[in-house]
């Protein structure tokens, strides 16, 4: 009952362009009023959901992402990737994917990656004769790798809701993230051959070494961020803090492209991006409470298990439902609502929470590039100046390899779990 009210009110309000965060909070308010529960719960839950040290990693990851761009890190990484693969069929298309894979190791948000490195990529690709809508679609698709390869803001949110280890999730995302990259590069190769996109002349080893040398300080950022987290020396929040300090050091001392007004601007951009994400998290916390106390998650588990007791069928079903939701809803709100709903079923099916976390988030990230509601599409439309309808058509082929990877990691758990189990030992 409460769940129906929540979904109904939320969808209607969202469609009438009430900001997503407010629409979610209001739907919880309505459910609380129907259930005759005091509304004091709303501000209380909003505050308590933010009162968490692990959550502090989010503004810090956002900061590293923003600093990367202003501090000259993204261009160096783009040039580094360019020297190595520009002569292969698909040329700058591959450079696009590889830069996104590397940048994914420093930034935790797909939307931030799309806007950060997207500008550089789309401009360079257009100069090389690639169609603009194709370049824009590729950039949107490869930005979804960002939150799968650690660090990752969605993984942090998932870990906090489910009390899963952030370190394990981060390691678990590494192989699936690389698979996404490789699958996109295969598609780039095939489509570039069909469309006859030209390649650039092969770089000499001198040029390669030069670009590598310039990129080394930037390439160290992920190493600095993760070595401490993976070996348990620092918490993810602290690792993010150290990486942020290193990014400032790079910008001021090594690349000399950052100054104090620049730093102020980065901090302000961080505040903007963080506030948007965090307000959605804290506004949906009342929904999470209503959903959990209503007993809906257990009902859902019971219904679905009565419908089929085959793990394969149910996992396919979950993935398809989530892909459809991804077309219609904003990603953070899907995580906040669906994770608590699905958790009992996942436990009943004996799926490892780290494995579920990775394929769940990958699914939701595909939602970032599926129209009509896809945040990365909106961002790319703006920076590439391509109409939304045109980009929505151009993105279609790029969704296919990502969905294939999604189903591969859903049904081969070792692709996710092998790395964390080997590095951090088997989960208790």
């Amino acid at each position, binding site marked *: 009952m409460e769940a129906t009210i929540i979904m109904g009110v939320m969808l209607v*309000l*969202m*469609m*009438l*362009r*009430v*900001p*997503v*965060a*407010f629409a979610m*909070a*209001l739907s919880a*308010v309505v459910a609380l009023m129907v259930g005759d529960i005091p*509304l*004091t719960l*709303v*501000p*209380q839950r*909003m*505050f308590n959901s*933010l*009162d*968490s*040290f692990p*959550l*502090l990693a989010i*503004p*810090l990851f956002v*900061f590293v992402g923003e600093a990367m761009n202003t501090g000259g890190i993204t261009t160096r990484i783009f040039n580094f990737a360019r020297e190595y693969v520009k002569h292969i069929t698909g040329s700058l298309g591959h450079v696009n994917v590889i830069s996104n894979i590397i940048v994914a190791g420093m930034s935790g948000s797909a939307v931030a990656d799309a806007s950060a490195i997207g500008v550089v990529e789309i401009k360079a690709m257009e100069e090389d004769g690639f169609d603009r809508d194709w370049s824009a679609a590729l950039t949107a698709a490869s930005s979804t790798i960002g939150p799968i390869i650690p660090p990752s803001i969605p993984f942090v949110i998932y870990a906090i809701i489910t009390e899963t280890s952030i370190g394990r999730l981060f390691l678990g995302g590494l192989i699936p993230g690389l698979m996404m990259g490789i699958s996109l590069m295969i598609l780039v190769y095939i489509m570039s051959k069909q469309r006859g996109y030209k390649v650039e002349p092969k770089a000499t080893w001198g040029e390669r070494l030069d670009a590598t040398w310039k990129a080394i300080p930037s390439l160290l950022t992920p190493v600095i961020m993760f070595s401490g987290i993976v070996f348990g*020396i*620092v918490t993810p*929040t*602290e690792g*993010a*803090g*150290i990486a*942020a*300090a290193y990014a400032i050091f790079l910008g001021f001392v090594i690349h000399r492209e950052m100054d104090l007004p620049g730093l*102020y601007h980065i*901090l*302000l951009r*961080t*505040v*903007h991006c*963080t*506030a*948007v994400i*965090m*307000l*959605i998290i*804290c506004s949906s916390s009342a929904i999470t409470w209503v959903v959990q106390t209503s007993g809906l998650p257990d009902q859902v588990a019971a219904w679905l298990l009565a419908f089929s007791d085959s793990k394969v069928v149910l996992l396919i079903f979950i993935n398809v439902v989530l892909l459809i939701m991804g077309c219609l809803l*904003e990603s953070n709100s899907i995580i906040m609502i669906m994770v608590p709903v699905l958790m009992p079923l996942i436990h009943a099916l004996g799926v490892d929470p780290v494995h579920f976390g990775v394929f769940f988030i990958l699914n939701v990230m595909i939602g970032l590039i599926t129209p*009509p*509601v896809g*945040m990365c599409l909106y961002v790319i439309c703006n920076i590439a100046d391509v109409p939304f309808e045109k980009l929505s058509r151009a993105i279609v082929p790029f969704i296919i390899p990502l969905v294939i990877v999604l189903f591969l990691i859903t049904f081969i758990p070792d692709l996710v779990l092998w790395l964390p189990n080997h590095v951090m030992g088997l989960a208790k």
Partner: protein
Amino acid sequence: MKINKLMDGVAVLCMALILLLVVAQVVMRYVFNSPLVWSEELAVYVMVWMTFIGSVICMRDNEHIEVTILVDYLPHSLQRGAFVFSRLVSAIFWVIVAYYGFELVQENRVVTSAANQINMGLVYSILPLCSIGMLFYIIRSVVKGE
């Protein structure tokens, strides 16, 4: 606008403080071997304040995520209607947060935090404060028509 600059400035200061506190915590633990006991709690409360101040800034700059795809297909007069409706509904939410947030402040006016003995009433006061800011910019957006 002075108030805009001030709000931006305070939020930026919060973010800088978070960064300093987290880095200081690691440095003190590993370099000086004397872990800080108070930095985590303080950093988290600063983040809460930053989030709510930032939300008001985003309301001012129209940056909160909205789904406009359906409304975009409506005729112009209906678009305007949907906009006013959506702002009205948003305002109701923030009135609720202001009212019950204020209650929370009163309930906690003698409670102090565990690590730093900060007055919790003061910490919670960001909820009604943020609501007032939100309501101001919601009303402004309706009057100015976005």
